[in-house]
């Protein structure tokens, strides 16, 4: 169990010496509890405390690291079941599966296209995390050549879907200076696969039909000297995936059950009669670790990568909306322009009120770091400078040639400064509360 700040504090020297660069021992202890500080920063901590704290902080889901010739990918270290408790830690991976039955040229072409895939989502660059190459041919040579072909076109991490030691070796040999994930050891081949993984120092996937068998296998493989593992619990469809992945996450987190405390690899396209996009989406939300897709389709991939970004955002960040110029009720060049902050509840209450008036209007949502009007103003995040900057950023002047801007009544005090920042604009002071917008517009906006 994780220790609370107070429990950790009792293990610290309690001298408030500030050598850790925190103002008090308790402040440092609370940062440790939140896993935002390192115990090593305290030069005075006792050995006993070190031992106790280390036990409490070992991650229940072991971190798995893959490396391509350039890219790196990490998954694991999750500490919560629900994203509102704390940020999901390492984004689950989205990989694309290719078969070695394709010719080298076909492979290169496909990899090149998928590797070049980048899409911008609110300033975040989204792309595939890597590729999985399947030894469908069953021939080590063919597989080795396919792996080499793929590696020629991508520098991202790879997964080698090679079910025999020979195939796996062939794949490994085709690569250098990388850290691919091997797939997979099962009840029949685990000894040999573990041997390969151990020799090559690579992580290994363990596959079984049931969680019982899976736990048996990971235990044995760990004993054989391979510690970096991924799990394939052989999923069949939406419900099986939900049940097994929920159980795995709960076992690791709530029971601290080490034999199953590893990231999970899934193949949503493998189950017939299942919509791969929907299953992949389920696994993004519900505990998937490495999600291997069979098709490269931007219209699906974009949606999935956005969903992953959403699910893995920090839930403690104030709920924000995207800053920008919003259209309400289809405004035109004569419609009023109001400005507010990008705190979601502020935005919603203003937008709903404006929408409720039935009048067309422009709403400039300024980037106030997700704070409400008063809080943002208090913290200097919603001042004349910021508003003027966003007026320019979002080309507001082009849309509203009347150059009148209505600011929230709560920040009436900035109207003078805003006049200086926006010299050719008329600054109007709107109501303090959103609920008064309708009557305000009725009386003040007559065009």
């Amino acid at each position, binding site marked *: 169990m994780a220790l609370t700040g107070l429990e950790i504090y009792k293990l610290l020297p309690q001298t408030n010496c500030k050598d850790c660069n925190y103002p008090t021992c308790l402040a440092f202890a609370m940062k440790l509890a939140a896993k935002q500080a390192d115990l090593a920063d305290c030069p005075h901590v006792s050995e006993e405390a070190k031992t106790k704290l280390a036990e409490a902080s070992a991650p229940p889901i072991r971190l798995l690291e893959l490396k391509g010739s350039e890219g790196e990918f990490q998954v694991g270290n999750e500490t919560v079941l*629900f*994203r*509102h408790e704390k940020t999901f830690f390492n984004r689950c991976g989205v990989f694309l599966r290719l078969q070695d039955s394709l010719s080298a040229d076909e492979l290169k072409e496909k990899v090149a296209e998928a590797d070049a*895939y*980048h*899409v*911008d*989502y609110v300033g975040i660059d989204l792309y595939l995390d890597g590729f999985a190459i399947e030894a469908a041919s069953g021939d080590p040579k063919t597989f080795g050549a396919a792996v080499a072909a793929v590696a020629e076109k991508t520098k991202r991490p790879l997964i080698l879907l090679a079910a025999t030691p020979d195939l796996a070796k062939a794949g490994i040999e085709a690569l250098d200076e990388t850290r691919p994930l091997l797939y997979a050891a099962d009840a029949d081949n685990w000894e040999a696969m573990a041997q390969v993984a151990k020799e090559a120092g690579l992580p290994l996937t363990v596959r079984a039909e049931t*969680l*019982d068998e899976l*736990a*048996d296998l990971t*235990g044995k493989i760990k004993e054989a000297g391979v510690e970096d593992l991924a799990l394939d619990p052989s999923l*069949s*469809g*939406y*419900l*099986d995936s*939900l*049940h097994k992945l*929920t159980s795995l996450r*709960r*076992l690791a987190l*709530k*029971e601290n*059950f080490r*034999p*199953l405390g590893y990231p999970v690899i899934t193949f949503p396209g493998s189950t017939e009669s299942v*919509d791969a*996009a*929907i299953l992949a*989406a*389920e696994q993004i*939300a*519900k505990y998937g670790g490495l999600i291997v897709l069979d098709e490269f*389709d*931007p*219209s*699906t*991939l*974009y*949606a*999935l990568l*956005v*969903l992953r970004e*959403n699910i893995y*955002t920090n*839930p403690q960040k104030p709920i924000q*909306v*995207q800053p920008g110029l919003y259209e309400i009720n*289809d405004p035109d060049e004569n419609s009023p322009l109001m400005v507010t902050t990008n705190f*979601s*509840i502020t935005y*919603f*209450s203003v937008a*709903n009120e404006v*929408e*409720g008036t*039935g009048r067309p209007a422009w709403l400039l949502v300024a980037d106030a770091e997700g704070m409400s009007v008063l809080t943002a103003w208090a913290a200097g995040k919603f001042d004349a400078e910021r508003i003027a900057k966003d007026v320019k950023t979002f080309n507001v002047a082009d849309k509203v040639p009347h150059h009148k801007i209505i600011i929230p009544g709560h920040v009436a005090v900035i109207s003078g400064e805003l006049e200086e920042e926006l010299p050719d604009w008329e600054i109007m002071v709107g109501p303090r509360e959103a*609920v008064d917008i309708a009557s305000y517009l009725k009386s003040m906006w007559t065009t």
Partner: protein
Amino acid sequence: MAVEIPKEKWTAQVRKVTIGATSEEGGTRAKTLTVGGESALPFLHYEGSFPNKPALAVEIRDRKPDDWSPLLLDALGETAEDPAKWAQAAEAMGADLIYLVLSAATADGNPNTPENVRAVVRKVLDATGLPIAVVGPGQAEIDNELIVPAAEEADGERVLLGVCEEKNYRTIVAAALAHNHLVQSKTPMDVNLSKQLVILINDMGLPLERIMMDPTTGALGYGIEYGYSVMERLRLAALTGDKMTQQPMIVDPGAEAWKVKESKVGEGVPEAWGDWNRRALNWETLTATTLIHSGANIVILRHPENVARVRKVIDDLSSATT
């Protein structure tokens, strides 16, 4: 090694809510829709019971909407011209609930009238045997003006009336009380606000069995994570015994997903967004299925194909055989 599957011991369950009334119950519906009653997190059949599957509502309008994506209007074709046909088409798609949204203005730009609302509600009730919801255009004064005649016209049908918001719920709740209907209680993505409005509505005398909770969601890419987490938190609170969070939840992925650029716009967007139609369909579906995993009891959809697509997922997830 025998791994013991961890199970949560929940102490409470989601409240059951029934929309629609058959002739025996004082209405004219061929069937009713009951949602809620589950006693565990979504689809974890091994630790609770799930007497009712999540349901699909299909949104229809009292007239052809001006601002819907052409993809939607193409898919709907001429059914969008007439609310009765639209309702029948929705029933054919596999809807469990007809979600009728009234417009603020008629096609010729005049304000919508109580008379027109009565006529439309009557038409829809006659056209389908499914239970219905009737909600206003979302402008307090107009909502109140239009929902009251709708409630009168559908007296006794146990219609879901909406939308109750913190600033405007009294008139709609009063109409629901007077004519034996239910209400949709909508709050902006906040656990406490959700509870508060349910309490205020309940304090007016409307039983909890007649309140659907709408915690609001954003579409994929537009705040879905907030809606998702608020719903998860509400559901966790419900299962641990917090009475005022035990209302079944209704959310509107259809409206949310179809108003974003990804669905609305086909040209001048990045190539990496992929095929417009497939993308738009994914947007609505993935928004809906993700919310179903966080506890939605009714999701409102728009596109006919997606009704079938989401239905299949719900059926698979609801089969306790695996």
